[in-house]
């Protein structure tokens, strides 16, 4: 379920590092909690994000949730497909439903995040 090569935050974001860049999205658990996603407010390209800073907002039919940046970095790209097809977040949260591409500022911050195994344990704690 949760890819081994991603890192995971306690806010239920994932980050997939590709060299200096990284893709960020929300986890399958998060999309299930939210329900049908109908709107994603994306950050502007070039925005400098700090660790755990709000990067945008995701709205389901019922709920509004902040998105937090799992690491510090600069926004290189936002997934414009979500403007027309926000449901991609539900359908493919770890793939086509990605939210932003970041230039990672400080790789050591990744150590504050969880591995897939750790994240699954973390979820067990929540679901109990």
């Amino acid at each position, binding site marked *: 379920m949760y890819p081994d090569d991603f890192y995971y935050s306690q806010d239920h974001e994932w980050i997939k590092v590709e060299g200096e860049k990284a893709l960020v999205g929300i986890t399958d658990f998060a999309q299930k909690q939210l*329900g*049908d996603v109908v*709107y994603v*407010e994306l950050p502007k390209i070039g925005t400098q994000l700090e660790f755990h800073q709000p990067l945008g*907002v995701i709205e389901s*039919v*019922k709920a509004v949730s902040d998105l937090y940046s799992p690491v510090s970095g600069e926004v290189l790209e936002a997934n414009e497909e979500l*403007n027309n097809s926000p449901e991609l977040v539900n359908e493919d949260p770890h793939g086509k439903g990605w939210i932003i591409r970041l230039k990672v500022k400080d790789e050591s911050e990744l150590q504050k995040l969880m591995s897939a195994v750790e994240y699954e344990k973390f979820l067990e704690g929540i679901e109990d």
Partner: protein
Amino acid sequence: MKKTRLNTSHKNLGAKMIEFFGWEMPVEFSGIIKEHLAVRTKAGLFDVSHMGEILISGKQAIDFVQFLTPNDAARLSPNKAQYSALTTPKGTFIDDLLVYCLSPEEYLLVVNAANSNKDYEWILSHKQGFEVMVKNKSDDYTQIALQGPNALKILQPLTEINLEEMKPFWSSWGKLEGEEVLISQTGYTGEDGFEIYTLSLRPEKIWEAILEQGKDVGLIPIGLGARDTLRLEAKLMLYGNDINETTTVLEAGLGWLVKFKKGEFLGREALLAQKGEGIKREIVGFEIVGAGIARSHYPVFINNKKVSEVTSGSYSPYLKKSIGLTYLPIDFTEVGTEFKIGIRDRKVSARVVPTPFYKRSEK
């Protein structure tokens, strides 16, 4: 937390449960959008047993109901129902409700879950001088709603009640799965459909039989999430959001249910005065012109001045737009009028549109 008699059925179906005014209720089963569209195009089954039921009986039951509510309950004969309200002397809402005439001396008020105790106390506090009995039956009744274009086709084979002939707001007693039920052609979705009331201790038999009967024509269970988006598209009021003890019946656009000619009722003078002077504000439906979704309590601005708040706001699954309701000063209520809604740090344009947002096509 209170549980309806269908609680286990919901959990077996994998519903996501939430607390709703002290009740553990299903908010969604298979996803709000899917559920919403099923009701618009096929059929949906709702457990709405959290709704309150208050029985007023006795020789003066009709006089008491007439005093408490602005609609004309004297027009009801047995097995007829009407939409009405419990009004304060100011013409504002204690609650909105359905009044069912069960017999010439028995009226059943179906009220909001959040208000059932408040309503009961309110009714008791005005009972003096009326020869009536008032009973709060809220915990006894199971209420199931079957809504959508396939509702009749699904329900008719399960009961000997002639549903084909039943008109809107008519009701009838009969049997369903061997259990005694009251079925009415009413609902809270903007679709044709029925509401089923029963005192049965085994209402899950009814719930399961209807689901089984409808499974080949697209019937699915529906949670409170889609119930809210459905009622909003149909511009049906939600107590606590769109109407409350500060909004009058006339401001809420419900003047049609106020029957001044019927005689005295709580709020009559205030409403008559307000009608004479003209209302200063009125509820309107709007859609967001740009991007974003308005939610209840978001601020509403005209010429940079905050004039009110969104009372209900949501993404509309059927219209695929962001829609909502708010009260605007009367000079700004015309269709097409533009105003602003504060969505987080932005002010987004919204436009007054005709309501209901959604109206089912006539058969």
